[in-house]
């Protein structure tokens, strides 16, 4: 199966094409440097993203911004957002406080990115 990937390593934005069979990468073409090759391999095996969103704060209409402590699998983003949306915190909260640990069974936690008193 052919897959198209755009490298985000630099503004060149090289367009790469990969040949993948049964989860095995047969070839990657179109990169101009090793950053692109490595990125394509990651994207083709387990693509990961940082997720940032907002959590309800009890007694306030203003939400608390949060992020994952590490990138999580792309396929789990919407499950992760659902868990975040279901959550509600009670102040005070400091930057870095864990709001949800091991979100969606990943290794990453959801942590606060702002203080709330």
């Amino acid at each position: 199966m052919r897959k198209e990937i755009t490298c985000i390593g630099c503004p060149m934005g090289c367009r790469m094409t990969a040949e993948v069979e049964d989860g095995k990468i047969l070839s990657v073409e179109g990169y101009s440097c090793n950053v692109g090759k490595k990125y394509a391999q990651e994207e083709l095996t387990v693509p990961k993203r940082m997720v940032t969103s907002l959590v309800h704060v009890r007694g306030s209409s203003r939400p608390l911004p949060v992020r994952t402590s590490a990138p999580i699998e792309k396929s789990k983003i919407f499950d992760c957002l659902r868990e975040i949306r279901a959550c509600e915190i009670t102040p005070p909260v400091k930057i870095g406080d864990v709001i949800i640990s091991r979100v969606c069974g990943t290794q990453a936690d959801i942590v606060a990115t702002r203080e709330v008193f």
Partner: protein
Amino acid sequence: MRTVDILIVGGGPAGLAAAVSAYESGCRSILILEREEALGGILKQCIHNGFGLHTFHEELTGPEYAQKYIDKVVEYQIPYQCCTMVLDITEERVVTAVSNVNGLQQFQAKSVILAMGCRERPRGALAIPGWRCSGIYTAGTAQKFVNLEGIMPGKKVMILGSGDIGLIMARRMTFMGAKVLACVELLPYSSGLKRNIVQCLDDYGIPLLLNHTVVDISGRERLEGVTVAEVDPETKQPIPGTETYYECDTLLLSVGLIPENELSKLAGVKISSATGGAEVDENLETSVPGIFSCGNVLHVHDLVDFVSQEAEKAGKKAFQFVQGQLAENGARIPVTGGFGVAGAVPQVLHAGSGGSPVTLMFRPKGVYRNAKISVSAEGTELYSRKYRILTPGEMVSLELGPDLLSRAAGAKELTVKVEA
């Protein structure tokens, strides 16, 4: 009238970094005035990650990046006043501000640092025909509603303009449960970062329609839909017969930023028509002695890291000015932008003030591949560097060393240009 050594207008990343660096240089009489209720500037609402890679070598969100500087300001006990709007600055550096708590205040500052940031280009600047209904916001306003106030502006969204804020908002609205139909861009390329196109649009299957624009807006009270048409890449005129109607309740505009220089003008600061910001020299001093400018009010940056760097310099130089040690020796050499260069900053260098390197920044006017950037004095090339690609989305920053500046001494002007 209170006196202060350095008065900083704006408590965003530029104002904060300027304050911290002025303090670290030895200044003990600093005051930051900020019109919003908290420090941090626009970063308060930028809850996504991707800040501080250059400065802290980790990927922070906007509020986390701002907090690093706010913590320093608190640690150093640098005075600041929030909810305080600066109304006037004179050439003599008398600053007038108003606030709920303190009423009208006047300060005599030995030096002023302008750090007011920028604002977004509104709908009026675009002249899109159609109804004046609700449901049309700039992307930054929508960002503020969602991320700070917890209010969703709509459910079915179109985005006009592919600037970074629009791209970031496409993903945010998707995360919050809205449907984003498409991002429409007039130019044949996006002015946003590649990373944002991939991670904010491609990841969620949101189409990017290049060479397209909105030609009509429908809806009396609330937006009901927009008509999008393809444009001729040469003339930028819509091509008849290519119109498509999209039903939507929200249109977000991400069509550029304008430095907010009303105050600078009141102080008599000369404004560059190329950047929309003040004209400055290598010390970031404006045409009015003792008034400095840095951050987005000087020129629109894409990365906050460079804002902080620039502001650190402004803080240091402002304190040198206060101490009477800011040497501006030698002739003024104007810097002009040649082919492919939009708004080079600084606009002026002093030939004899060498010793420390000068950062020259500008935005490429178009997309150039395998290009060379050169700096020359009356036809003699003093510096050149090759680039695989230059795009308007990424500001170019050149470090000109003292040796280059000494070779430029005596020149009538320096020209920076792209050769592609």
